[in-house]
Structure formats: structure tokens, C-alpha cells
């Protein structure tokens, strides 16, 4: 069963085509890497899937709902975390989680239990009343991911979630991703780190608005006759 089905999705800004006729599917519980250089159209494609941008043409089903006519239902089923940190700096850790949980209408009792569970998992229980502005970036990223999961979404979109954090935190972050995927959450992730790309079950590479390649990291390396994903990536980006 596919939780993301994208069909001929296109986005034009005036005469510039940011996303050109892309189609792909992502399975439930899959970790799908969405690669491409800056300006390749990744963010635009992701914004369309989240309902932030209207597509020029094409269609998509996200979590079983039609992108154009059922965007309300889609919003309830997805979580999102951005490259730039996107929790409220002037609220505490717990207040942020309460805010987003309440927005998604998680029942109060249930929400309190979930927050406690997530904070314990992140080892942040003792810091729950600390302002988000005062905690290190690595914590913030993990917290944002955890908050995006509070309403138990079917899909989580991660837009370069680990940029700017050290390797240890990245490793911890990825163990959170694996845990969520194991529970059936579909992970849709963009990244600049090629080692992270090889953690994904399948990856795709976008360049100049086109979806150039899609498959498992090993398959793609064999298919293109290269040794690393980095070579694979530069092959498309430098053309």
C-alpha cells in the first residue's frame, strides 16, 4: 500500500518550471530520500505535497487523500519539520509540545501521556520547563521531530533535518527516524549528507526540476556503475 502517490506533478513560476512532471510512489513505513542540489525543485515539490503550494498540473494522493480536493484531511495526517528550526523559541519545551498537540486536537489526557513518553525517550524530562531558545541545536532538532510525531501522522516530511548538527546527534536523530518508520510512519526526507542518503531504503535524485533517478541506493550505484552515492549525485548535479 502506498502512502504517497505522485502523478505527473508540475509547478511553474511564470516561464520557469521548478518541478517538471514528476511521478513516484512511497510505501507505508518506508524511509524515502529525496536528493538534489539547491534549486533542483526538491523544496517546491515538498511544499506541494504538504499543501503549502498549489500544483500547476498533475495530481497526488497523500495518505490516501487527493491533494487538490482533500487537503484538509491530508493536513491532519502529515507531520513536518523544516531545515530551519520551527518551534517557538519563546515557549518552553513542554509548551511547544502542548501547543502543537492541541492544534491537532489530540485529547488532553492522551496528549499529556504522549508528551511524557516523547520527553522520556529524548531524555529531556528534566528540561521540560526550559525555554527552547536556551537549548542546544541538536536537542532542538530532535525535539522538533518528536513534536511532528505527536499527533501520530502517517507521513513525516523532513526538510534537511540534520543540517548543522554534529555526527553524534545525527546518529541519534537517525535512530529516532528508524524507530518511527518501524512503527509504520512513512519518512520523506531531503538531505545534503550523502552518508544519510545511504541510510534510506530508497532514494531519488532531482536535477533542474526533473526526477532523474529512483531506486534503492545499492541498485542505483550498480545501475550507474559508480562506487558511492556521492559520485551518483555529482554525476547529475554537474551536468
Amino acid at each position, binding site marked *: 500500500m502506498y502512502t504517497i502517490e505522485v502523478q505527473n506533478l508540475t509547478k511553474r*513560476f511564470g516561464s520557469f518550471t521548478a518541478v517538471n512532471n514528476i511521478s513516484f510512489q512511497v510505501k507505508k513505513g518506508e524511509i524515502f530520500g529525496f536528493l538534489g542540489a539547491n534549486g533542483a525543485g526538491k523544496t517546491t515539490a515538498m511544499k506541494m505535497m504538504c*499543501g503549502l503550494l*498549489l500544483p500547476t498540473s498533475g495530481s497526488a494522493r497523500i495518505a490516501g487523500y487527493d491533494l487538490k480536493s482533500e487537503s484538509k484531511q491530508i*493536513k491532519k495526517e*502529515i507531520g513536518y519539520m523544516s531545515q530551519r528550526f520551527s*518551534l*517557538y523559541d519563546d515557549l518552553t519545551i513542554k509548551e511547544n509540545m502542548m501547543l502543537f498537540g492541541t*492544534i*491537532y486536537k489530540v485529547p488532553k489526557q492522551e496528549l499529556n501521556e504522549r508528551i511524557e513518553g516523547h520527553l522520556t525517550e529524548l531524555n529531556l524530562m528534566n528540561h521540560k520547563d526550559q525555554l527552547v531558545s536556551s537549548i542546544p541545536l541538536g536537542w532542538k532538532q530532535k525535539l522538533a521531530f518528536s513534536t511532528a510525531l505527536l499527533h501520530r501522522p502517517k507521513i513525516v516530511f523532513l526538510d534537511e533535518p540534520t543540517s548543522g548538527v554534529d555526527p553524534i546527534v545525527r546518529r541519534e536523530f537517525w535512530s529516532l527516524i528508524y524507530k518511527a518508520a518501524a512503527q509504520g510512519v512513512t519518512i520523506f526526507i531531503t538531505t545534503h549528507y550523502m552518508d544519510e542518503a545511504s541510510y534510506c531504503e530508497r532514494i531519488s535524485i532531482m536535477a533542474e526540476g526533473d526526477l532523474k533517478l529512483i531506486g534503492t541506493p545499492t541498485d542505483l550505484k550498480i545501475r550507474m556503475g559508480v562506487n558511492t552515492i556521492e559520485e551518483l549525485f555529482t554525476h547529475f548535479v554537474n551536468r
Partner: protein
Amino acid sequence: MLSMPVVLIILFGFTISTEIPNAKISIYDQSEDVQSQRLIQSLIASDYFQVVNYPNSEKEIAEDFSQLQIKAAIIIPPQFEKKLISEKEVELQVINDMSDINVASVIKQYIETVILNFENDINLTEFGKTGLLKVSIQMKYNPELNSVYMFVPGIITLIMIIITALMSSITLARESETNTMKMMLITPVKKIHIVLGKVIPYMALSFLSTLMVLAISVWIFEMPIKGNLFVLLILCIVFMFTSASFGLLISAISKTQLDAMMITMMGLFLPTVLLSGFLFPLDNMPYGFQLLANIFPAKWFILALKDIMIKGATFIDIWFYVAVLLFISTLLTIFSVTQIDRRRAS
């Protein structure tokens, strides 16, 4: 940035001027003889005044003040010509609208100038006396010449604009800057709810501040509220919405907090101070600026506020101002919402 000095010098250069051409007046001629007609002619010929009515009673004069918005009324006493010949002193009564002290003092000067010229004319030709005509000023609306009357409406306006328009536009721009707006837009929350959630606290805050200013001006500075307090509060609420719609517009066209601040200061705050009639009389600005002043809601709000507090106007007297304010806010809200929507589609 470079346009700033140009805008400033033009705004200040044209708005700060003490001349008031074509001030509206009424003349109550109780004598209707040759000399009274000559006086009226010289008032008209002076170019200072536009005589809008010739009332025939004190009651009609009062109506001219409330309905024709005259700035002053001149009452020529009966048997004007006879008195000029036989008496040592002839009193000319002038009723002056003191709700705007700056305007009132300029108008008083104009009247005195015209009368002096008139006296010189008749001195040369017929009567040969000097210092014959005495002007007695009767003040209407603000007999204590209290400057509180001037600045309270202005302060209320500025508070509403700073808190409601500036703060809500900055806070919305900040959401975009810190990416939390994007986060919010991805959640199932409706866009209008996000905006309302951001704007309502500031509206409440500005309303509380307005109540405080009113309380202080009434209890400490003894400013009257001659009209209905309820109507006054309704007016303030309407203006609060208008300010909020400006905040919405500013946040729709600005990407950062700095943009929002600059646009509010240059595009709203400054024009409000200069073009609302609060510090500088609108009547003496170039026609283009008077037209421009109509776009900014502050002018209408201050007019209505003064009418209620000083002149005791009822809702029927100020409904037009309220309608203009509602019209401006509806227009701006619709425009801003379509702007935000267009950004999503493009």
C-alpha cells in the same frame, strides 16, 4: 530607503503651514444696510473666507456649526450704519469654533485683518474715526481653550495604530521570519484563525489602553464626554478593526519584521500624524494632500471622536465617518487575504 528624505520633506513642507484658505463662515446680518453689505463684501473679497450661509437667527447659526461645519460665524448688529456714525464703539460679535485651537486663532487673525481694512476704507471716505469697530469673540465648543481637547483624540488614534497595526504586523512578520508561520500553515489550523489569534490580543490591548486614556483625560484633565459613551466606545472598536486591517495589509506585503516596521512608520504612522488634522489643520494643505488624507482612517476617526466628545454628537451625526472606516477596513481585509492567497498559488 532613499525615498525617505524625499517623502519626509514633501510631507512636512506641505502639511506644516498656518494658512487656511477658504474657511467656511456664516454671516448673520441683523441690519442689512449699505455698510453691513460693504463689510460682507470685503469679507468675501478677502479670499480668506467662503461664506456658506446667511442665517437669520442664533439658532440657525448653531445649525450651521453642526451641519455645515463652519469655523466661525459673524454677527453684524442691527442699525450698523447708524451706529458707525453716532457711536464711539461698535461691537461685532464673532463666534469661533474652538475645538481646533490652531485653526481658531488663524481665523480670528483673518477676521481682524479684514475689519481693519474695512475701517481704513470708511475712515478715508466717510466717518473719519479710528478704533470704531470692536470684535468680541465668543467661543463655541471649547470655551476653556483646553489643549487636552486637541491631543486626546490624537493620542487615542496613535495608540490604536501603534498597538493594533504595528504590533500585529510585526508579530505576523516574525512568524514568517522564524519559519513558524510555515509550520502553522501545514497544520490543519485555518489561515484566518492564525491571523485572528495574532491580532485579537493586540486589539484587546489597544482597547484597554484607549479606556485608560479616556479615563485619565476625563478624571485628571476634566475633558468632557458630551455625547453618549456607548457610541464613543463603538466608534473606538470600529477604528480598532480599521487599524487591525492596516496591520493585516502591512504583514501581507512585508516579508520581515524590519519591513513591517518601516512600512508602518513611513506609510501609516507619519501620514497619520501629519494628515489626520490632529496636529496640523487639513484645510490649509494643498488639495492633493487633502484628498490623500481621506485614505487614512485617522482623519475620519478624529473627526467623529471630537464631534462626540466636544460637540455631543449622536450616532446619527457620525454614521458617515463610521461607514467610511468600515469601508476602508473591509477593502483592506479583502485585499490582504487575496494577497496572501496569491502567494500560495504562485
